[in-house]
């Protein structure tokens, strides 16, 4: 096992821990995407490029997109609106771009 593989595996473990500790669903999906991306590089180092292609297309691409749609449908992405409603403006509003996508 080379040092490169060890670094990748450490990243994988960090990703898994980060997924379970993130509060926001959107961030969890993003971390999951990066997990899949690292996993596809691990597949390449394990000499199975066909699995790497599939992992990159399905894990990092299609599944995450499906998650995004689901979050949008259950209104879990509109953080701007939520923040305005609950009143803690100074914490969440600064992170978002001005006039963001919460205009629906």
């Amino acid at each position: 096992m080379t040092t490169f593989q060890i670094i990748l595996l450490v990243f994988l473990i960090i990703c898994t821990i980060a997924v379970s500790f993130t509060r926001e669903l959107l961030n969890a999906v993003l971390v999951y995407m990066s997990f899949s991306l690292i996993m596809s590089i691990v597949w390449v180092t394990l000499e199975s490029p066909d699995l790497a292609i599939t992992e990159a297309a399905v894990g990092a691409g299609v599944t995450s997109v499906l998650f995004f749609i689901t979050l949008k449908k259950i209104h879990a992405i509109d953080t701007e609106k939520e923040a305005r409603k609950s009143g803690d403006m100074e914490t969440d509003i600064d992170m978002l771009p001005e006039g963001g996508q919460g205009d629906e």
Partner: protein
Amino acid sequence: MSRRKTDEEYSRTKTYKFFRWLSGVKDPYIDSLELQPQEEKKESEEVILEHLHDEELALEKVYDVSHNRFVNVFERVYKLVAALFCVLMLVGLLMCVSFLPENGSADTVRSNVVVDRYIENGLEETGAVNIVSGMILTYRAFDTFGETNVLFIATCCVMIMLMMDEKLLEKAEKQNDRRFEPKDDVILRLVASFLCPIIFIFAIYIMLNGHLSPGGGFSGGAVLGAGMILYVNAFGFKKTQRFFNEQIYKVAKITALCMYGLIGSYFYITGANGIANHIPLGIPGHILSSGIILPINVAVGLEVACTMYAFYALFRRGGL
């Protein structure tokens, strides 16, 4: 041609009544409507007391941590037990791993003749340079056929649950079309117009070259589906429907599955009964070689691409 109404006819129309009301000649609602002042809703003291009592009762029973001691203790114990359970599972699984024979040691079970046969005779019997592809689509074609069927049934289920009636879909799109169509994103469009052709060609290459290089039907189909999702996101559903609408989707999906079924069943029947099949294997390494693998790769690829795109479209919009 419009014709002038007589005065009598005009006095019956709503316009006449409206202008009469506007000029203050006569209020049309006098004598026909009766107005009454609304009474304020009053609750008796008993009802208010009962509500307060209910609230007290609820506080005792509902999982309100600050008011319920039992729930408080239970939550702490629950967390502890959960952590303990996780650690025990981890230890148990690691113990199991320690009992496994070491990789490459002399004690490893060597009764699995299948692996040797795949590796030694694979190229000769299937004609595929890519052993994995040859194994999946000839020796284990029946398994892969089952997987393809699973994909087909999965999309059918999603269609049953999420497909909207076409009239309803049009109505919903008219009400707020911004929810379904992406905004004119210049960056996304430019990037997509560069990337989409490359992705499509790469996907087709993976599919057609599955018996020679790493990849195959499933990978190629997944990449093709992802590329189509990118195209839809950049250019909207209307442009995509020009080359991929519901009709084409149905035809492609069912044709792919039937093609796989037909080729596969010919292969199973001849193989199981010891009949020589007449599909030429060709010269290994050529693009038109390895018998049934190439058409099956294309069929699986189409099936997977349709599934990916249909999942996305049905989740997002409720129709293709």
